[in-house]
């Protein structure tokens, strides 16, 4: 009898996860199908399975897949970062973009481009250092926000971390704008991309770096998911149940910073994913453990890929940056879920 409670909710969570997963698969096939010429789903599937003509395979694997993969991976990384931050700060408003981490990473990238570009707009160092610059920028801002919050003389109110985050995010954004104006014009275009976020210029190397970051982060999260769940308790209760709170907070914050920074380094400062994906997952399948984290990652992946698909079809031949559209899809969905929550609780 002791397990009935678990089993009574499992099917619903599993079903929701399945729906999330199938949705992401469908979006992936659609995303690959779109392009200069539309490729119907059956041909996409054949190409993916290696049973299609050579031209199809080249189109799918070389031309279209990197973009889709980057969208999926960046979305998952940002969503997971958001879920982690909401737990660590015990604040539903926390997200990489709200806490200044996204803008910190973007600033890191812009400073990197500014310092290491030469007159002909090429980098004097390897582009592979770019994620490192992003991580540095993100870390500086995350540490600043954390330090200010901890040292707040009025105590760590739930809103103070957000207030400091918003303030520092504005600072980073302003610094990026200034650098864009001060720097030579030819770098402004690049910087602009990072401020909005796009997966349009994706290469396999972008997706590969992100995949590596996720390959490190996901197992860590998988193992530590229970500690993350324990952070739902207030600080005192979490410590009293045996959590080493400060160490856990520092470790998870570092994880969120790396996930955000690597996503931003390759796809730009795509907003809104880290804030909404965890809420969507929570409202649909509840706030428990690994199923919740899976749903969060899937929701983030679907959101960014969906945004990129819409960005490509909304005004052809124009291609909009995906970052401009994550809010267009995510926001109405999120507002709907927010209102529906009251109906569930009532």
């Amino acid at each position: 009898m002791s397990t009935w409670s678990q089993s009574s909710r499992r099917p619903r969570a599993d079903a929701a996860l399945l729906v999330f997963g199938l949705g992401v698969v469908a979006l992936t096939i659609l995303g690959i199908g779109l392009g200069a010429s539309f490729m119907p789903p059956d041909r996409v599937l054949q190409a993916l399975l290696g049973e299609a003509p050579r031209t199809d395979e080249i189109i799918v694997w070389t031309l279209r897949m990197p973009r889709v993969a980057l969208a999926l991976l960046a979305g998952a990384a940002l969503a997971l970062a958001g879920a982690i931050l909401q737990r660590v700060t015990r604040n539903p408003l926390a997200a990489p973009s709200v806490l200044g981490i996204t803008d910190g990473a973007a600033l890191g990238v812009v400073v990197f481009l500014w310092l290491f570009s030469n007159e002909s707009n090429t980098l004097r160092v390897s582009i592979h250092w770019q994620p490192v610059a992003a991580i540095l920028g993100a870390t500086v801002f995350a540490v600043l926000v954390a330090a200010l919050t901890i040292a707040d003389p009025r105590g760590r109110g739930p809103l103070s971390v957000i207030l400091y985050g918003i303030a520092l995010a504005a600072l980073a954004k302003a610094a990026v704008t200034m650098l864009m104006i001060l720097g030579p014009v030819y770098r402004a275009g690049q910087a602009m991309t990072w401020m909005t976020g796009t997966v349009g210029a994706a290469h396999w190397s972008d997706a590969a770096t992100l995949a590596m970051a996720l390959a490190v982060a996901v197992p860590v999260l998988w193992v530590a998911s229970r500690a993350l769940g324990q952070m739902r308790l207030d600080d005192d209760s979490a410590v009293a149940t045996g959590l080493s709170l400060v160490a856990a907070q520092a470790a998870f914050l570092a994880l969120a910073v790396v996930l955000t920074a690597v996503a931003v380094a390759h796809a730009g400062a795509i907003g809104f994913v880290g804030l909404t994906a965890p809420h969507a997952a929570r409202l649909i399948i509840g706030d428990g453990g690994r199923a919740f984290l899976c749903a969060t990652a899937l929701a983030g992946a679907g959101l960014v890929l969906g945004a990129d698909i819409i960005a490509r079809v909304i005004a052809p031949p124009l291609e909009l940056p995906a970052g401009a559209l994550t809010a267009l899809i995510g926001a109405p969905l999120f507002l709907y879920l927010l209102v529906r929550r009251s109906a569930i609780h009532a």
Partner: protein
Amino acid sequence: MTVTRTVLCLVLALGLLMLASLHLGLRVYSPATVWAALGGAEGTDALIVTTLRVPRTLVAAAAGAALALSGFLMQAVSRNPLAEPGLLGVNAGAAFAVSLGVVSFGVSGLGEIAGAALIGALATTFFVFTLAAFAGPGGQAHTVLLAGVTTAAMLAAFTQVLLLIDETALETLLFWLSGGFADRGLDLLLIGMPVLMVGLPVALALAPALDALRADDTSAAALGVAVIRVRVLALSLAAVLAGGAVAMAGPVVFLGLVAPHLARRLPIKSGQTLGSAQLALLATLVGATLAITADIVARLIIAPQEAPISAVLALVGVPVLIGLLRRGAGARA
């Protein structure tokens, strides 16, 4: 310092800054030149003073004051220190309405733009607060913010898509949408002045009710405050103020958030608590002062280019905000 003296100091500072704003820029003028220009002298310098610097100074003061008062009202009414027209999406709503008007309905005249901004601001305000009321039991602070930040992002995205699709609109609107006080016409004050002239007295009239709302709704109701009516009125006023500011200067970030916080932490003789009326007045003055300061800095900081006002506001405002947040003592969040 007593409140009266603080107000007088602020007014003095505002006046001096407005004067300085006429003198400073890419070309620095002597008081004689400025005086002559204001007296109707001819020539390039006089033209720069009267057609460029006078309007931008006045627009900055009016927009800053309106945004600050709007932010103060929202914070007071929702008991939420983070509520302000920027974060709650009101500025984005006004900006979207204007963009939509220009792109789809050929809106062009000043009155039409102001109208679109007001409609956008009002609609967004009520959308966000209604949504939050439906979503959160008791309108929790973070529910309003979640709804607001989400709505702001959505509307900003709509605007961006609108502009990316319609390139002519982009050219017309991009400058205005980036927010700022440069190259604004003096006629914009026809929007700003009436909004402020109505806004400040009404805010002061609402002040006793806002004081009562500081506790909680039930206590306020027990004191005889018509909680719902006060809230709707104050929010409408906040929306009108924000809409007016956006119509003048475009969506300027940060002022509505920072100015009321600064006002609360001005050096006032200890033991003296500020009423809502005093705070409203102080916030308005602080907003105008900040806007002009930022505008002057924007002209000088990377001359000969001009820095975007939002960047300046953040670069200057953020350290100040953080410092004040940390000073903390006697502060009411």
